[in-house]
């Protein structure tokens, strides 16, 4: 049975009218940073209407689900916000963990201060979302994340508790989506008009087939057939989540994963950005993709992790190569460090800056590290002595692993690994290694081959 997580907000988030304008207070809660009255941000939004619309869209992403039944949708998960380094980033996942959305309010997008840097859950309740929909262009809107100076809340209200099942998929998604984003490269930049034209060609309904973004007759279109350097978008209907924002954008950039395992759609509104990252298909969540698994196989010295964690602050760029050079670590290990830190919920990725940024997920590390069942299963296989290495050399490893009623064959040659199990046969390595391959790699210590 899944654990519950109880969000405890000091007061509900709210948008209130005051003499000076609108005051948007976002109540925060972090189970790892339970300090009373932490305030992460306090200041004025320079693009209040756009920021408000982006936050409403983020809430729509969080409320959406493309592969789960309505019963799974009962509890809404709250997004998280990372405040620091002059930037605010709101992140969230759809229930099915196949759509990741982030709103970045860049330094020019606000006029405020960051009393404390950090990452926290923020309460997104219906009345506040309703109020956000009413914010007008040019309105004076103060935003506060955490403790607020607004008199309304200064007296301290009743604690708002919302109990929801622990969003395991969320946390897993948040620990692996950045690996896909890091591998992605910018493929297209569209103006507002081109973006609108592209979305006019979006198929109706929820097509099960893949669609491709191609350029035809000088215009971007969605086509059911791949052509040239077309970008594959599975579950293309999920893009409708950002349709309402398109009339407001300056431009749209698209960053596909080289293996077309994800696409990131970044909308630009001056100093506010909204990015939407889609998984390979509507029924696939980032949580189950196993992108980080291989990075978790090698043991990284604990002190490096602590070092990286201790000296980083929220939204600070994290450069693994620089870290490797400074600490005298080889680059492969540094790459694993990035994967490891991501899997621990300590890094996010900014496709525009093409670099990782530090943020510590507001969930207990003990929860986060138990979220890779395939790795746990691999360790179980090893513990039960079910892995037999037939031969092992620098060129090729052959092993058998006991499965349910049969023995699976695992062959690792060079950088390629294959297995006879159902998971591998169906996905052919696209969704990360199976538990059998992980077990063999762990046993032979060739995770980086």
């Amino acid at each position, binding site marked *: 049975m899944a654990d519950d997580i109880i969000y405890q907000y000091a007061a509900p988030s709210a948008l209130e009218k005051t003499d000076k304008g609108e005051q948007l207070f976002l109540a925060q809660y972090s189970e790892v940073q339970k300090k009373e009255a932490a305030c992460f941000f306090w200041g004025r939004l320079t693009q209040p209407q756009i920021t408000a619309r982006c936050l409403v869209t983020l809430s729509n992403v969080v409320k959406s689900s493309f592969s789960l039944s309505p019963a799974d*949708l009962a509890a809404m998960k709250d997004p998280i916000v990372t405040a620091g380094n002059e930037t605010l980033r709101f992140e969230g996942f759809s229930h099915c963990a196949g759509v990741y959305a982030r709103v970045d309010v860049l330094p020019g997008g606000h006029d405020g201060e960051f009393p404390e840097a950090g990452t926290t859950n923020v309460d997104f309740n*219906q009345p506040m979302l*309703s109020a956000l929909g009413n914010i007008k262009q040019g309105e004076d809107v103060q935003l506060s994340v955490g403790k607020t100076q607004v008199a309304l809340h200064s007296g301290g209200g009743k604690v708002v508790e919302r109990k929801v099942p622990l969003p395991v998929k969320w946390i897993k998604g948040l620990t692996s989506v950045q690996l896909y984003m890091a591998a992605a490269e910018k493929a297209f930049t569209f103006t*507002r008009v081109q973006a609108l034209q592209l979305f006019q060609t979006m*198929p109706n309904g929820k097509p099960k087939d893949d669609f491709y973004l191609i350029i035809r007759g000088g*215009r971007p279109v969605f086509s059911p057939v791949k052509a*040239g350097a077309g970008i594959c978008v599975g579950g293309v209907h999920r893009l409708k989540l950002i349709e309402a924002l398109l009339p407001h954008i300056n431009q749209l950039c698209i960053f596909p994963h080289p293996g077309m395992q994800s696409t990131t759609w970044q909308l630009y509104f001056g100093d506010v950005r909204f990015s939407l990252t889609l998984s390979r298909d509507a029924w696939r969540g980032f949580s189950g993709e196993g992108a980080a698994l291989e990075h978790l196989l090698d043991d990284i010295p604990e002190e490096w992790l602590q070092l990286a964690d201790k000296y980083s602050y929220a939204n600070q760029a994290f450069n693994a190569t620089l870290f490797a050079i400074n600490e005298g670590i080889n680059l492969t290990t540094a790459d694993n460090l990035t994967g490891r830190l991501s899997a621990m919920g300590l890094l996010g990725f900014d496709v525009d800056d093409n670099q990782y940024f530090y943020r510590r997920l507001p969930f207990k590390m003990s929860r986060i590290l138990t979220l890779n069942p395939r790795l746990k299963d691999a360790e179980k296989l090893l513990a039960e002595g079910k892995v037999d290495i037939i031969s092992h050399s620098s060129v090729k490893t052959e092993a058998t692993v006991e499965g349910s009623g*049969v023995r699976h064959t695992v062959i690792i040659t060079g950088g390629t690994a294959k297995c006879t199990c159902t998971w591998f046969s*169906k996905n052919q390595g696209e969704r990360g290694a199976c538990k059998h391959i992980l077990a063999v790699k762990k046993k032979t210590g060739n995770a980086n081959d």
Partner: protein
Amino acid sequence: MQTIDETYTQLLQKENYKGVLLWLKGLTNADKKTFAPMLKKLAKEYLEPVGVETKNSYSFTYKANERQRIILAITAFVCLNRFEVDKLGVGWQLFEQRRLDDVLPWYCPNWFNDFVNNADGKNRSNFRIEYLYLLSLQQQQYLNPSPQLVLQVLPNCIFEYHIKEKLRKYTPQVLLQYPITLQQHIWFLFQYPSNINWMAERVMQQGTVVTNITWQDVFINFTAEGKISRQHVLQEALLTGTRNFDKNLTGWFVDLFDQMKPTPAELVALQPELFALLYTTHSKAVSAALQYLKLIVQQNQFDAARLIEAAPVLLAAETKQIVTQCLQLLEKTAKQYPALTNDVCAAVCHAFIHKDDALQTRAATLLKKLRPSTLRIITDNIAPYQTSLLVKTKELLQAYLPAEKPLEVEFEPPQAQVQPTPVETTAQPKRLIPISYPASVEDLVFLASQAFDNNQPWHVDVLPAACVNLHKQVLASGNLNAFEPALQRAFALAGGDYRGAQGYLDNLLATFFIEYCRLLIKLAPQKTAGLNLVEENYFKRQYEIQSKWAGHVVRAAHLVYWKISSNEEVYQIHKQLMLLAYKKLETGSTLPLLATPTHEPAWIDPCVLIDRLALYQQAGQQADDIDLQVALTRCQLASSAQALAYAPTRLTGDMLALMQFLFDKQATPPATIQHPGPWMAAALAKNPGELDPELHPTFFNNIAREKLTGQYQWQPAIEHYTEHKWDAATRKMVKVPAKQPVLELYTAKSKAAPEPPPAGIVKKLLGLFTSKAAAPAVTATSPGGPLIYAFEKIHSRHMTILDNDAERLMYLFANNPEPLLASITREALKHVTFYAEADKRIVVATLKALHHLFKPGMGQMVHVFLAACMLTNDKTTAALAAEIWVASVSDNGINSSLIGHTAGILLAGELAPVKRISDLVEGCMLGISPRHNEALLNIFNAMLSKLHPTPPKGLKKLLELYIEVLAISTPGNDTISAPELAANLAAWKQTASLAKTITYIEGRLVNTGAGKA
């Protein structure tokens, strides 16, 4: 003395509710703790469903009756903690008949409020609390209901159900019993999502039945009676549009606002809410807001600046009505506030994102009318939309437009990206990709483990072929048990466990593999203990299931008996190939299968085919007829000159003659032929669509020529059928004769399309006589031996997983797919509009295969299929058909006039509305390249010629697109349809709404010469 457990069990058995209450009152906390395990045990015994199996059915029942369930629920509430009560799932019964009133006065746990308010989704939906009971609990301070809980029960409270009278009564007075209802609860309806919009009841009111009583009546009456503030209701109703509610709920509140008939003064006061509504995603709300703003645009207090601010968003809306309304409002704004003319002009330009003639004309006319202070206002703002401007718009705005830029300049590629060529189509280079073939036993092990997943369409061919090729190495290998995972999966699939993309062919392949493993067990028993165990486990599991479920059939998975329930003939070809492979394995023959493809998706390199045949000749063996026919049909003939030179170096005699006949388009068959099947297959492969004049009269002449070439005659027809309809007068389902247009394919021998069968008894009687004649006349072993084309018929289009096989079935006929295409058209495209999801999936899969197989010069059937697909109601299907057209126009391989001709006839036969082709042309076919524009003109000329002289609905839009096509294309040499086209144009011109458009077209035709004979 009785123990606690015994006392309670007795009370429960006797259904003594009062006794239980007394007994519970007397329990101490320690007693409750002691009793809890027993209670859980009893709850499990009484509340869990028990299966009851009879001979023909399986049902569930419970030990507890209703009274015992309530007793258990109350006991659980008193004795267990919250978590345990939740787990038992008895929460909802606590509220039945207000039973909690018997308990709460003496026991109310501190978790009660939280339990009721925060039960998870599953339990919450089960709470059946009456609204008034909820308020009573609140008044007694047992409960502080959350808005969500209130909204769960409030909507129902105004409709009270009377079991005796079997009707609902409208009881809005319930809302007046507690002040909190009107002060607070009723407003939750506007602030949180609820199901209020689904509450439309048929109720009994003052002795008569009134339909569709809704909450809107409550609001209208209560505001009229002054019970709640009208202004507040109006304001909140509008604000719901900004609260992210779903489309239906938002629409419901828009209706409420509408029914309350707001006055202009009220609308002026509500301007902030109306403007906020313009940004919602629900078109109904936006449209309503625009409608109300239009009513107050002339008032002094109208906030014109906010309208102009919202215009870019409104004019980008997908809904045409919103764009039109916005333009109307902007026009009025400019008229009312002349100082804003420049701003209005700049805003109007955003309407040109829509390639819609009516919208663009309206926007362009408005711009001309408004006259901004400087031309640049329009020039600058219209520039981004230049690629979307239609011909008539360009003519209207000529003065404002800069010189036209080439298409590609408009597109801004990222720096890292190569500048796109002016025209990028979906045309793939015809580069053949070799299929990776297992070279070792290890490769075979990994192929076998994924072959049944349908990861690649050629796996179904490659696995049997690889088994044959590697059989000796497999036997020599020490690791035969490496096939265990594949065998386990094969058994699972053969046992009926279909997943994802698997089709019947995967089941067939799995059955083949099982047989192969059985052979390995027989040949090398000492090495195959693992395989043997997998088989034993399969049967053990199957018999276990059978012992529980009498109807379960244990499938033994024998290849020779393999068939599917509908006995589709088309699967016989693959089965035959697998039987052949198995025979080779059984006999130890190393001769390869001929039909195995060498290149994606199903092509065979002609030189490889020659080499394979040479092996047969060297071994003095005769090739299997079906195997050879499939090989010939899959042989890549694009560059056959090299193969023609190579064949004599490797082959002699009959085989050499057959290959030379295949590779030389002009070659004729010899006078004597022993095995006519392969010769016929070769003739149809090299000249698809035609019958060899020397072969067909002699061989297979009992098979209709259309069945071999796929070139059926076709026409739209009317199908008569009986439909079941609800008759409101008699309140019964009645049978009603009905008719619908269908696409019929028929052979030349049947003279003409079959007469529509009469309805009713006569039809049934006639059916008895005609049914024999309709039975298939051809079998696989017709005179001349077996022929693969005799198997191509598909009977059952509703087979749910045929779509997973359709692509692979098409690849059996790679060089001549039109006969199978005809079969699929007849079954799945008969109505052009898809009524079944299975039809759609089959057609989509077929289109994907056709995209790979399409080559220049294909016959009429392909064109009929594509045209019908373009007219379907599924946009993916239509877009795929359009993609094939785009690619084949690039290769000069398609007859666009024939596509247009077919589409025109189908439209005239009312198989599809004209709008479908208009949308497709606009979205996928217009303005791709000069060559495509010319081909599109051919489509239009032919299509318009075939439409009825009486203008069909949606013709105007099609004609507007024709104008665009005429403007961007150079007239080709297509003249076949000109007289008919001219006649149709003349006839349509009589319709007032079309006259202007047609005059414009005629002018264009005169100027360009297009369409002239």
